[in-house]
C-alpha cells in the first residue's frame, strides 16, 4: 500500500506538471490580450502627438507592425521618461519603444533587443554653407538643443574647445530656425531627426555633414527576465526587414531606408533561435564556476589552518566557530553576512560588504573551511600513532613531521571526502541567489518563468551533472597521484 501511495503522489505531481506545461503552451499560441508600450511623446519623429492629438511616429508605426498580428490591443502609454525602468519592472508597461539609445547602464537595468536603428549625432548646416567637415567648425557659432544627446556629444568632442560659441535652445525647431536665418552656423542633431526634417522641410535648405560627432544604437527594452518577448520582437524585426515593410515605414518618415539590421546577428539568430536561452544560462554558469573555484581554492588551506589552530591554547574558540558554521544553515549565514551585518550597532557600517559576490565568497569560504577543518581532523586522526612515535625517536622536527610525513598521508585519506565536499559545493553555489547574485540556477529559473519552456531546466540538469562528473574525474586522477 505504501508503495502504491508513493506512486500515486509521483503520478499526481507529473500530471500537475504536464497540465501546467500544456496550459502555458496553449496560452503562448493564442492571440494575447494586450501589450502596453511606454514612450515619451515629445520625440518627433520617433513618437509624438500629431496636430489632431493622435500619437504617431516612426516607432509607433514599427511597433504596430510588430504586434498587430499577435495582440488584440496595442496601447501606447505616455510615461515619465525618468522612471521608465520602474514602469517596466512594476509591469505597468511591457515594452519601452521610443528612440531608446543603447547604453551600458540600460543594459544592466533592462533587457535590450538588438538594434533596429543606428543613430549618429551629425552636423546640420545651410545648403550653401562653406562648412564641409568638422574641421571647418573652428571659430563658428553652433546651436544645440538643451540637454540633448547632441549637446553632450558636442561637449565631449575635441572640437568643442575651438568653436566660437555654443547656443543652447529649448527645441530643435528653434535650432533649425537659427541656422536657416544665419544666426548660427551649424547645429548638432540626431541623424534620424535631421533626416525627418530634411524630408519634411525639403532638402534644398540644409545639408548634413558626412562626419559624425558620435553614434549610438536605438533598441527596444523589455523587463529584465522577459527573454521571450525580446526574442519575439527581434524575430519580428527580422521579418519586417526581410519583407520590405520596414523600409516602407522608414521611407515614409525619413524619405530613405535607414532601418538597421546586423546581418551576421540576424542570421545567427534564426539558426540559434531555439538555443537562445543558453546565453543567460552560460552567463550564470560563469558566476557559478568563479564562485566554486575561488571558494575551493581558499577554503581548503583555511580549513587546514583552522584544524591546526585547534591544537593551540585558544583552540576552543575555533571549535565553537566550527560548530557555529556547521550547525546553522548556509542560507542563513549568507543573509546575515550580506543583509544583517550593516545593521550591527557601531561596527556594522565598517564591516558591511558592499559587493554581493564578495559577501558570497566570504560566507562560503567560512562555511566550507569549517567542514574542511573537520575533514582534515578525520584524516589526521586515522594516521597510525606509530608514525608520530617513530618520528619522535628519530629526532624528526615537528615541521618536517607535519609537512613531509603526516600531511601527505592525511591528504590521501581525505581525498574522497574532499571530492564529496566539492561536489556539494558546486550545488550549494546556487544559494548565492538569496543575496541577489545571478548564477546558473537563478538564471535558469528566470528563463523558465518568462518562456514557459522546460528546456532550460533540462539544460541546467545537464550542466550540473557535467560539472560534477568533471570534478569527480579530476579527483579520481588526483587520487592516483598518491602512489604510496
Amino acid at each position, binding site marked *: 500500500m505504501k508503495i502504491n501511495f508513493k506512486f500515486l503522489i509521483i503520478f499526481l505531481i507529473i500530471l500537475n506538471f504536464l497540465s501546467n506545461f500544456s496550459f502555458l503552451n496553449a496560452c503562448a499560441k493564442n492571440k494575447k490580450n494586450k501589450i502596453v508600450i511606454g514612450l515619451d511623446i515629445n520625440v518627433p519623429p520617433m513618437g509624438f502627438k500629431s496636430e489632431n492629438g493622435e500619437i504617431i511616429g516612426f516607432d509607433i508605426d514599427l511597433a504596430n507592425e510588430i504586434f498587430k498580428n499577435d495582440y488584440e490591443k496595442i496601447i501606447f502609454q505616455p510615461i515619465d521618461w525618468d522612471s521608465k525602468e520602474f514602469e517596466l519592472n512594476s509591469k505597468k508597461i511591457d515594452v519601452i519603444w521610443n528612440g531608446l539609445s543603447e547604453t551600458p547602464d540600460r543594459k544592466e537595468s533592462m533587457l535590450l533587443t538588438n538594434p533596429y536603428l543606428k543613430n549618429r549625432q551629425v552636423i546640420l548646416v545651410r545648403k550653401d554653407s562653406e562648412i564641409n567637415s568638422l574641421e571647418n567648425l573652428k571659430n563658428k557659432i553652433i546651436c544645440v538643443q538643451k540637454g540633448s544627446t547632441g549637446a553632450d556629444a558636442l561637449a565631449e568632442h575635441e572640437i568643442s574647445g575651438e568653436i566660437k560659441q555654443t547656443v543652447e535652445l529649448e527645441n530643435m525647431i528653434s535650432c533649425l530656425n537659427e541656422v536657416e536665418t544665419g544666426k548660427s552656423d551649424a547645429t548638432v542633431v540626431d541623424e534620424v531627426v535631421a533626416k525627418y526634417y530634411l524630408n519634411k522641410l525639403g532638402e534644398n535648405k540644409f545639408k548634413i555633414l558626412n562626419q559624425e560627432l558620435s553614434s549610438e544604437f536605438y533598441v527596444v527594452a523589455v523587463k529584465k527576465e522577459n527573454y521571450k518577448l525580446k526574442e519575439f520582437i527581434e524575430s519580428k524585426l527580422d521579418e519586417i526587414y526581410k519583407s520590405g515593410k520596414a523600409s516602407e515605414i522608414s521611407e515614409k518618415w525619413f524619405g530613405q531606408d535607414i532601418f538597421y539590421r546586423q546581418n551576421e546577428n540576424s542570421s545567427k539568430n534564426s539558426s540559434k533561435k531555439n538555443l537562445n536561452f543558453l546565453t543567460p544560462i552560460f552567463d550564470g554558469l560563469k558566476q557559478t564556476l568563479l564562485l566554486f573555484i575561488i571558494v575551493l581554492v581558499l577554503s581548503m588551506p583555511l580549513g587546514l589552518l583552522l584544524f591546526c589552530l585547534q591544537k593551540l591554547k585558544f583552540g576552543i574558540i575555533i571549535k565553537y566557530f566550527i560548530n557555529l558554521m556547521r550547525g546553522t544553515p548556509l542560507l542563513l549565514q549568507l543573509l546575515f553576512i550580506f543583509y544583517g551585518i550593516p545593521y550591527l550597532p557601531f561596527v556594522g557600517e565598517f564591516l558591511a560588504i558592499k559587493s554581493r559576490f564578495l559577501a558570497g565568497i566570504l560566507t562560503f569560504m567560512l562555511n566550507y573551511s569549517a567542514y574542511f577543518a573537520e575533514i582534515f581532523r578525520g584524516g589526521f586522526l586515522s594516521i597510525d600513532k606509530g608514525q608520530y612515535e617513530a618520528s619522535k*625517536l628519530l*629526532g624528526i622536527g615537528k615541521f*618536517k613531521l607535519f609537512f*613531509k610525513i603526516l600531511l601527505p*598521508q592525511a591528504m590521501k585519506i581525505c581525498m574522497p571526502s574532499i571530492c564529496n565536499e566539492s561536489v556539494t559545493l558546486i550545488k550549494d553555489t546556487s544559494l548565492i541567489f538569496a543575496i541577489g547574485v545571478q548564477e546558473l540556477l537563478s538564471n535558469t529559473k528566470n528563463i523558465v518563468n518568462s518562456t514557459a519552456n522546460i528546456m532550460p531546466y533540462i539544460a541546467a540538469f545537464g550542466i550540473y551533472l557535467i560539472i560534477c562528473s568533471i570534478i569527480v574525474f579530476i579527483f579520481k586522477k588526483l587520487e592516483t597521484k598518491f602512489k*604510496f
Partner: protein
Amino acid sequence: MYAIETIGITKKFGNNIIFENLNFKAKEREITSILGPSGRGKTTLLRCLAGLENINNGTIKICGEILNNKNKDNLIKNIGFVFQNLNLFPNLTVLQNLKIVLNSSKKAQNLINKFKLNGKENEFPKNLSGGQKQRVAIARALMLEPKILIFDEPTSALDQELIQEFFKIICDLINQNRTIIIVTHDTNFAKNSSDNIFKI
C-alpha cells in the same frame, strides 16, 4: 658497565599495574633478550626505556645517566628503536625514509648497500617484502648511529631463513660495538642468539 639499567621501576595504566619494582640490566656490546608470554609488559618496558612512556616509580639509567625530563631528548639519541610493525613512513621511498632522519645521501647509500636494498631506493614501503621492510627500518634506526638498538618482536613475521639473516645482521651490529636489546617470545631464538636472557 651497563648500557641500560632500570632500578625498581613500576608502570601502571590507571589502576592496572603492568610491572612493579622491575630491575632490568643490559650490558654494553651484548645481546640481551627479554622473554615472556604475551601481556606481561615486554613492549611497555621497551617503550619506557625509549622514553615513549613515563614510569610511575623507579629510575632508568641510559649509558650511566639517569633519565629525566630535562635530558630525555638528548639521552634518547643513544637509542635506535625498531618497532614491531616497523612504522616506516609509507608516503616516502626507501631512500627518503632514511634521508628524512639525516640529510646525508652518502650515509643513506652506504646503509642501502649494506642491507642489500640496492635497486629498491625509489620503491615505496608497500612494494617491499617483509624482510626488506625490516632491513629498511633497521637502516633508518642506524642513520643517527645510536649506541643501543632496541627490537620489538623482530622475528615474529619472519621465516627461518630470514631469522638467520636477521641474526647475521645483529651479530654485525655487535661487532660495531653496539648494544642490542630484543623483545621476543621465541624461546629458541632467544637461547641461540643472546648473551643474556631477561625473563619477565
